[in-house]
């Protein structure tokens, strides 16, 4: 709890940013997907990256993980440039499409990735338990439902207990009970001091986040705590706040 007190989720003391994005520019197919984006993400918190599909959320996440080719600006993670070999053990990344082997069982998948990460087999059981798949450990991944498959992919990211966890739409299509469980898992990881960045196109998910990045057309329309956003826009829910902010932006006023 000592860590949680120092940089805890509700704590007002803010730790130094663990992810720093400065003037990031990403082009794809001759078009600026992200023209110029800057933000900082702190440890000990869940940061939600919300916005409609196609607004550049995944691209930003890929840039933070260091698998995205960028065209300007810089991304720094835990004091290193994104994608630095030193970070490969410390950053966990879950893509939107489950990236696991469909022809292997759940346990075989996890054991393989545990072997690549060099972590013990006990971490396999722990990760399975966290995502609620212990009962399906011997099922072949290809036979599982879409929601179960994405949980296998999430379990892989939890194997190494990473300091930074980048999760691209991890709760899509999951049943509400499990979704709440996963959010509480993310919460306890954050309390232990991890940096958690979770994207979603469902604005309701904002309720679980300590800080929100609202994104539209490759740019951030807001970067603040949920309560502050509601107060600032005089709205009751994040969806209305998002709309209010977008309307203000198109009126030509400052964000």
């Amino acid at each position: 709890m000592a860590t949680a007190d120092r940089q805890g989720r509700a704590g007002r003391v803010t730790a130094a940013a663990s992810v720093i994005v400065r003037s990031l520019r990403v082009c794809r197919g001759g078009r600026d997907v992200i023209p110029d984006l800057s933000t900082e993400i702190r440890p000990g918190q869940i940061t939600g990256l919300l916005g409609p599909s196609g607004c550049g959320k995944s691209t930003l996440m890929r840039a933070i993980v260091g698998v995205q080719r960028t065209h300007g600006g810089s991304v720094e993670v835990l004091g290193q440039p994104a994608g630095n070999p030193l970070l490969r053990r410390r950053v966990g990344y879950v893509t939107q499409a489950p990236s696991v082997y469909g022809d292997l069982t759940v346990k075989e998948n996890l054991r393989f990735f545990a072997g690549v990460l060099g972590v013990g087999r006990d971490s396999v059981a722990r990760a399975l338990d966290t995502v609620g798949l212990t009962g399906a450990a011997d099922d072949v991944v290809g036979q599982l439902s879409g929601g179960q498959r994405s949980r296998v992919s999430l379990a892989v990211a939890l194997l190494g207990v990473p300091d930074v966890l980048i999760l691209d739409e991890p709760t899509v299509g999951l049943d509400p009970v499990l979704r709440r469980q996963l959010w509480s898992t993310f919460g306890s990881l954050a309390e232990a001091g991890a940096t958690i960045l979770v994207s979603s196109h469902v604005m309701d998910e904002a309720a679980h986040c300590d800080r929100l990045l609202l994104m539209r057309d490759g740019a951030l329309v807001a970067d603040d705590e949920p309560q502050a956003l509601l107060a600032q826009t005089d709205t009751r829910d994040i969806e209305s706040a998002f709309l209010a902010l977008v309307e203000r932006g198109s009126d030509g006023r400052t964000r």
Partner: protein
Amino acid sequence: MKPAVTLAITGRVLLQLRRDHRTLALMLLVPCLLLTLLWWMFDRDELVFGRLGPPLLAMFPFIVMFLVTSVTTLRERSSGTLERLLSMPMGKLDFLVGYALAFCAVASVQASLAVGLTVGLLGLDIAGPIWALALVAVADAVLGAALGLFVSAFAETEFQAVQFMPALVIPQILLCGLFVPRASLPDGLGQASDLLPLSYAVDSMRRLQTTGLSGDFWADIAVVIGFVIATVALGAATLKRRTA
């Protein structure tokens, strides 16, 4: 490169193959069936089987491994697992060597079956030792795997990957000396055949059959292994940690 990671990759690829009984059966049995068919076709003329058998022993593992590797690695690229592995503490060589070892193991089994069948049951006469025949077959299989790995970078779908077979493999079959002796090929084509790895694989099989182990045999094998190393290096260059 870390041996534990390399072996984890090898183990996983073998496990995936073991799960896929149909592919495994096709990989191991089809070459044997085709060699038997050939033997039966030339039932009345043993000399023809003796002439065609060794080149085909070199060719089958090459073709089969090319197809299997190009499709498997393409699947790994498109499913996002390759990107995930590259964001983990895994060296590119771990990935490539891990795959090569797994396919080497399968190729050894395939080559043993094919060589055992042709020499043991179908009566192919070979001057050199049988293990050398198997060695050439394994080297050819690894060559096919390395080439398959390389072309998977240029295919967007499994359909495209399979189409690389006629584009890259059939010309090598036509020019390797199976249809026309390499020395009798017209100007230009003879030189082209000198640049293709399968020519050396087939030459080494021929030498093994006629004169047994010789310096020329080892020189041919060395060329095949050189091509393998060059292709794996090219393959490593196509594994990009950052993509657009």
